[in-house]
């Protein structure tokens, strides 16, 4: 177990280093840097001025030097400065993280609270009308773009309440906050809940065919006890994987949903930074997103061993 953990940890680091190189190189493939954009926008071309700006930002250095500087800074907690706001990148990114984290947490809670029970119901009532309806709903959840669902929700709010529930000012009370975030969280979580539901259903169907389920029924265990204690407990492992993957990959849905609902979280910030070619922000944000994803995957792997004692990581 210890050897496995150490090996996994080093692979994790290796992956992160790989991502940092990938992102860094990709961003520098872009023809034209921030100096070009700023000068184009201002409509003035003074080569000396531009060269000075490039020097200030370190853009005149070879790409390898730029990379080493970035990673060196990263290890010291120095993420560089945003080109656009000229504030430290850390000061720009850090306050936005809790916003996105809350949204992601709510979305995940939504997907588990709806996905798992509905998946169980769908499996237990296999091939009934209810099962078909639930399956069509989950499939449409997987087919709808998250931003469109968000727009539809906005539309419904306009016609029912006459207001747009988009972010305008920071919420004051906890209740306000919950109210404000729960709608976009539902828009993001719907897709994940559809995925969780599908997987719970197929995993449950697999387990319900097992001999020990028949035994449990034969000894007179209640339907509820069979379904939830005997079957779901055994069916949950693949579901945990998918919840883990979804937790790490919720970012895609969050990017568009934060844009629709005007929420100032990290996901929307990434899009803004990409548009502005604000490298320090983009590369640090992408690293952050990757780190979260990689760590979650690691934790899910460990969770396996806890949930299923049959799994032993021997190496």
């Amino acid at each position: 177990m210890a050897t496995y953990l150490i090996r996994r940890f080093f692979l994790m680091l290796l992956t992160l280093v790989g991502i940092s190189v990938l992102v860094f190189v990709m961003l520098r493939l872009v023809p034209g840097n921030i100096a070009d954009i700023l000068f184009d926008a201002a409509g003035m071309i003074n080569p000396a001025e531009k060269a000075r700006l490039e020097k200030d930002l370190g853009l005149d250095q070879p790409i390898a030097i730029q990379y080493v500087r970035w990673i060196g800074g990263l290890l010291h907690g120095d993420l560089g400065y945003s080109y656009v706001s000229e504030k430290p990148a850390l000061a720009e990114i850090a306050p936005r993280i809790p916003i996105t984290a809350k949204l992601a947490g709510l979305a995940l809670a939504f997907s588990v609270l709806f996905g798992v029970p509905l998946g169980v119901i769908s499996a237990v009532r296999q091939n009934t009308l209810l099962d078909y309806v639930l399956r069509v709903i989950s499939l449409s959840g997987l087919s709808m773009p998250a931003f469109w669902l968000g727009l539809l929700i906005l539309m419904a709010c306009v016609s029912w309440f006459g207001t747009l529930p988009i972010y305008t000012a920071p919420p004051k009370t906890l209740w306000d906050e919950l109210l404000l975030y729960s709608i976009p969280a539902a828009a993001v979580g719907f897709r994940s809940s559809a995925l969780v539901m599908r997987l719970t259903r197929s995993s449950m169907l697999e387990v319900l065919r097992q001999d020990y389920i028949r035994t449990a029924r034969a000894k007179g265990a209640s339907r509820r006890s069979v379904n939830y204690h005997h079957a779901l407990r055994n069916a949950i492992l693949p579901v945990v994987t998918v919840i883990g993957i979804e937790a790490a990959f919720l970012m895609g849905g969050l990017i568009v949903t934060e844009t629709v609902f005007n929420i100032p979280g990290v996901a929307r910030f990434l899009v803004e930074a990409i548009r502005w070619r604000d490298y320090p922000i983009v590369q640090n944000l992408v690293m952050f997103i990757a780190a979260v994803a990689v760590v979650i995957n690691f934790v899910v792997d460990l969770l396996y061993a806890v949930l299923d004692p049959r799994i032993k990581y021997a190496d």
Partner: protein
Amino acid sequence: MTSVEEAAVKPIDIAPVARLWPQLRYVVTRHPLGVFGAAIMAIFVFAAVFADLLTRYDPVSTNAALSLARPDAAHPLGADFMGRDVYSRIIYGARISLAVGLGATALGCALGVALGLVSGFLGGWVDLVVQRLVDVMQALPVLVLALVMAAALGPALGNTIVAISIPLVPYSARVIRSNTLALREMPFVEAARAVGMSEFRIAVRHVLPNTLAPLIVLATAQLGAAILTESSLSFLGLGIPEPHPSWGRMLSESAAEYVRVAPWLVVFPGVAISLVVFGTNLLGDALRDLLDPRLRD
């Protein structure tokens, strides 16, 4: 006894036309949802191919008088801010959506197959390097990697296809690799080697065809994902540039303002995206049942 060559690459049994109808009926009764999905896809392909015949207005020409026109007889789905006919834009948008979806899926799968086959068949340090590369690519959410790629390559149709294909590569690479690892040990591979076949030929002629079933299932699922990713990229303004009528672009940011005044601009492009992805999902599920019984639920 048939020769090794013959046994391994036995041609697929093609049903004579006389047996086609009963077979078709069998498929329809066994997989009604899959057939429904295929029908949806067929409608969109039809719309994309015959877009010129199905529409009366040019999807890109603007008309200030029609700005935000409500749906009526002449413009059944209304007109957008620039006075462009929404119906025409949706029909022409099918071209963009399918071109990007199919292009990105094909490119992503081709790269993934090449990587997976090399990795699984050669093993050793090549496998190690490719697997780390796949790990790196898979550690980022599809949309995040596609966003960075799209920004790096710049807005153009071809670039969008490439930007969406790259994040799809690790998935097919993984599937092909694991299948190749299992197939590599099969007796027919050993037999092919025994008769002196080159490693490359074994990989391409014997191993690759046996990985096609899971690949088709995966590719169908990725088609839906690629179309969704394109719509998200275009929605964020980093995908297909104007004036191409992309469904995602039609829903672009200003849509939050149109929610109040012009709901038809919000509803219809979204319906088109969801419907085409719904079709690929239904089709994908049916194909998985047909081709990959192990994954059946």
